[in-house]
């Protein structure tokens, strides 16, 4: 228990001392997770929306698959990306293994199903509202997806933030594909795992609290930018 207090104290100490390594790791965490978030959003928001407006035969099955993919174990994703990017793998020549790029790829795979699934759910509601109008206006599939994303952007925020949360807290996959190499691919979560393994729980907790603070900060910023709560619906 006292360890938890020690962790909080450690977090303050770390922030206070503005440790250079810490800043480096924190910035890298943010860069990797935000890049993954942007890429995953660009894929998953339109895809989830598209799924909400399309009716096809295996739709129910497709949605189940999407939901099941939310449960992709990070370690397995890490492993597959590792095998694909390793020297002997098909993309070995690119030399991406153990780089932040590899970590981003793994995170995109992990968070895209989550974002797409939440998007799909949020968009079904809006689509049932807009359905008749958009069809009547003779819009193309593309335009429908566009209109839904535009007008549902506030509700899509939760999807994106859930994705970000999963990315910033994830460790299993990026450990495998990033390798937790000091100064290169070490991020907050892998550092936490490392300190835990070393038995330095206070430091691990300190880093954890910093991560949560960071996450809170990103959330507040995004909320402020989008003024989600400003005036109820719309």
């Amino acid at each position, binding site marked *: 228990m006292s360890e938890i207090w020690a962790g909080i104290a450690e977090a303050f100490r770390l922030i206070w001392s503005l440790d250079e390594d810490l800043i480096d790791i924190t910035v890298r965490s943010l860069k990797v997770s935000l890049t993954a978030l942007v890429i995953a959003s660009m894929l998953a928001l339109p895809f989830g929306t598209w799924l909400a407006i399309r009716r096809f035969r295996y739709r129910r099955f497709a949605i189940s698959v999407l939901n099941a993919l939310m449960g992709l174990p990070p370690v397995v994703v890490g492993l597959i990306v590792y095998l694909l990017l390793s*020297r002997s793998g098909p993309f070995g020549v690119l030399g991406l293994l153990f780089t932040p790029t590899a970590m981003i790829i793994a995170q995109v795979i992990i968070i895209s199903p989550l974002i797409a699934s939440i998007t799909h759910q949020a968009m079904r509601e809006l689509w049932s509202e807009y359905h008749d109008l958009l069809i009547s206006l003779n819009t193309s599939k593309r335009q429908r997806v566009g209109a839904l994303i535009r007008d549902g952007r506030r509700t899509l925020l939760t999807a994106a933030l859930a994705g970000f949360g999963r990315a910033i807290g994830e460790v299993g996959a990026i450990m495998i594909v990033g390798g937790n190499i*000091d100064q290169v691919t070490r991020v907050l979560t892998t*550092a936490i795992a490392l300190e*835990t393994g070393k038995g330095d*729980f206070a430091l691990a907790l300190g880093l954890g609290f910093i991560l949560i603070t960071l996450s809170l900060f990103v959330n507040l910023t995004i909320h402020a930018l989008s003024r989600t709560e400003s005036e109820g619906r719309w």
Partner: protein
Amino acid sequence: TLRLAVTTSFNNSGLSDVLLPAIHQDLGLEVRLLVVGTGQAIRLGQAGDVDAILVHSKVAEEAFVAAGYGVHRREIMYNDFIIVGPSADPARVGAAETVIDAFQRIAVNQSTFISRGDDSGTHKKELSLWSAAQQDPATFVFWYKSVGAGMGASLNSASAMDGYIMADRASWLNFGNKGNLKLLFAGDSKLFNQYAYLPVSPDRYAHVKARAAQVLENWLVSPRAKQIINSYKIGGEALFVFNARP
């Protein structure tokens, strides 16, 4: 049941898979293994969450006993560390006379080297070898990769990066992703790796199963254990050498 914290390298060797059934058979004792980093194993012992630990980091172990967390330290067996690297062996480690020489070759050649970087017994051993070779890892540049991970994960990294790494023989033999890696150097007495068994002190934590821990300890130093440990082989190679004094 008894809870025993062990290091990843011990578990990766596969020895536990033959030891635990034998223990169960002989003593009727169910041993639950917690596979964690050395530091974490010691912390679990300090918190009284396990009944005994089996690790390989002499300095830390002695401190553990000195601080009153452990009853005593009982050496059980040893294996050795080895240096593994790309089969092309650019630093010509294979031709080294001593482990110090091997480390120096790697440093001079600036060949990719993967370090556990996790304060584990293996990592501490590696650091001591660097300093014996009059090298300071803090000054190493791009080629020295501190991956901060367990033995298996570090081996995976080495395999993917085609780098050199110091590993314990057991983990190496049991490792399934050797890729282009090859055992290049072994046998120096400096690479000796002693495993010790430390029961957690019942004075400190009344709930620990001291009797069971004692029973297990007696079994671990028995001829029966000796026979099992010494005859545990992978690919015809023995992994551990029993060296407990009865």
